[in-house]
């Protein structure tokens, strides 16, 4: 069974179209990275998946309709919608007590063992914790929930680099077990590069690219080209080109590795470069269509 299945997902805020017919299918056990510029509709899509927003179209999460069955769905789904949404007045022991009391899949012992690795005292209020500690506390809560789907929307926003690294390490080592599904959004794309199994680009409310990381590796290729061979390489219709010291880097979509190997040094592009190339092409096409 697919964990998430969306067909023709639409959402309008007044005259603004936030989601313009999203089609997506996420199988169980995948880690999906959802990347897009600001205002692309990532958060709107996630909010629809989490039952926080009404929407048009067809959407099923773990076989349920998130809008009408949010409370049941939340037994199997956990999410960090944003950093710092833990109520500032609550004490650490209170939030543990409350989640343990209302969540049938919360393992308090597990949460406490996560917290034992931090400097967070149980008698402290969230407002007295540092930003990193609040994120650690929230992560400890979420990781102690035996959920089938975990949604993380910018989970590391505003946190320092050490903490961000720890965050993804514990996510992969202590939480992910190949049967759970995780969806991540972030602007720090290079950090999730080696975490995700699937990649999705969203722009202007539409899915512009959606592949598994294996597919990305076999399809896309980046070539470091010496100026002498630039014209030969350009003949293979690169989707993007940028200048670096000592030459140009060209990106290709669906051109065989063997055909390009003679023209320069080939490698799989990073998500950030791929993102820039795909989004820039989208804009070009849109401008072309407008003309």
């Amino acid at each position, binding site marked *: 069974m697919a964990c998430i299945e969306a067909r023709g997902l639409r959402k309008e805020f007044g005259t603004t179209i936030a989601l313009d017919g999203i089609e997506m299918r996420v199988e169980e056990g995948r880690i999906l990275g959802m990347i897009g510029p600001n205002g692309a509709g990532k958060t709107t899509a996630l*909010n629809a998946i*989490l*039952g*926080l*927003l*009404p929407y048009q179209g067809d959407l099923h999460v773990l076989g349920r309709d998130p*809008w009408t069955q*949010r*409370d*049941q*769905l*939340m*037994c*199997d789904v*956990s*999410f*960090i*919608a*944003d950093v*710092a*949404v*833990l*109520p*500032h*007045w*609550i*004490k650490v022991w*209170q939030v543990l*007590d*409350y*989640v343990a*009391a*209302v*969540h*049938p*899949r919360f393992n308090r012992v597990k949460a406490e063992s996560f917290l034992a690795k931090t400097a967070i005292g149980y008698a402290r209020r969230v407002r007295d914790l540092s930003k990193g500690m609040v994120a650690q506390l*929230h992560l400890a809560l979420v990781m102690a929930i035996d959920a*089938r789907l975990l949604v993380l929307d910018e989970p590391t926003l505003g946190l320092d680099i050490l903490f961000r690294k720890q965050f993804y390490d514990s996510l992969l080592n202590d939480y992910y077990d190949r049967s759970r599904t995780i969806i991540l959004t972030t602007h720090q794309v290079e950090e999730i590069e080696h975490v995700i199994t699937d990649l999705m680009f969203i722009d202007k409310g539409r899915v512009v690219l959606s592949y598994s990381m294996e597919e990305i590796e076999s399809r896309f290729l980046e070539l470091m080209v010496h100026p002498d061979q630039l014209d030969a390489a350009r003949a293979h219709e690169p989707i993007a080109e940028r200048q670096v010291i000592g030459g140009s880097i060209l990106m290709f979509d669906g051109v065989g590795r063997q055909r390009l190997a003679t023209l320069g040094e080939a490698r799989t592009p990073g998500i950030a470069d791929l993102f820039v190339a795909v989004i820039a092409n989208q804009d070009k096409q849109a401008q072309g269509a407008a003309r």
Partner: protein
Amino acid sequence: MSSQSNETPESTLQEQGIAAAAFPAARLLYWSVRRELWENRVIYLAPVAVACVFLFGFSISILHVLVEMRAAPWLDVMQQRELFGQPYEFAEDLIMGTLIVVGFFYSIDALYGERRDRSILFWKSLPVSDLITVLSKAAIPIVVLPLLAFAITVLTQWFMLMVSSAVLLGNGQNVAILWSRVGIFHRWPMLLFHFLCIHGLWQSPIYAWLLLISVWARRAPILWAALPPLTIGIVEKVAFNTAYFGSLIGNRFTGGSEGIAIMARGRAMDPMMLFAPLHFLINPGLWIGLAVTAAILSAAARLRRCRGPI
């Protein structure tokens, strides 16, 4: 059938495990009410603080009341009741007033504050429905505050009686008149009924309305709560020169004719003239009010579903 259920395949077991049911609603409601008390300590601190301030003043007043009490045996029964009973009534009124003020400010902020500080996103990530959340917040002014106010009033009055008795005894006076005329013991059941039924059930539409505005308003919920009733009242006054709507609202605040009668009868402090709870319970005004409360609260729960941080 039985053979099928005996051979439950592993996958079915897993699915059963996966479909782990949420906890019963009563448990979620109980813990959500506790959460409200953690967040809003003013719910119990305010009445306790008021009671302490009152007791402080009362302890000082005993010194000069002592002089008046010397004359007590020569007063008639009604005068004695007035002399001894007055501070006890004042304590009730004071705590009742605190209850109303706390209930009002709690309700108007209850579903607004969680959106303002974005914590609604955390609460919504837990398997607690919007209805249970709204009910837990409505339970504070309608059930918890009246019970709490009653308990604090009883403790305060008991403490007053003890202090007065100690002072009287210390001065070699008779406490029998004080104990027989103070008349608080038979008032306590009446008081509990009054707190629960008038301040809880009868006034519940007011709290429900405040909760609805607190989930709806994007800013200044107090203003939005006051505006529609004021507008209707003004239009009615200008258009028809009547004030039915105003008296309808006023009736909710004062407890209606039935409520006033109960209070007055209680005040008469005559055990024979005790209130008639049945009268109150068959009053259609009560049931209409409760129906309005139920309708407003379910609307608030539906509205919270589409509400996010502001």
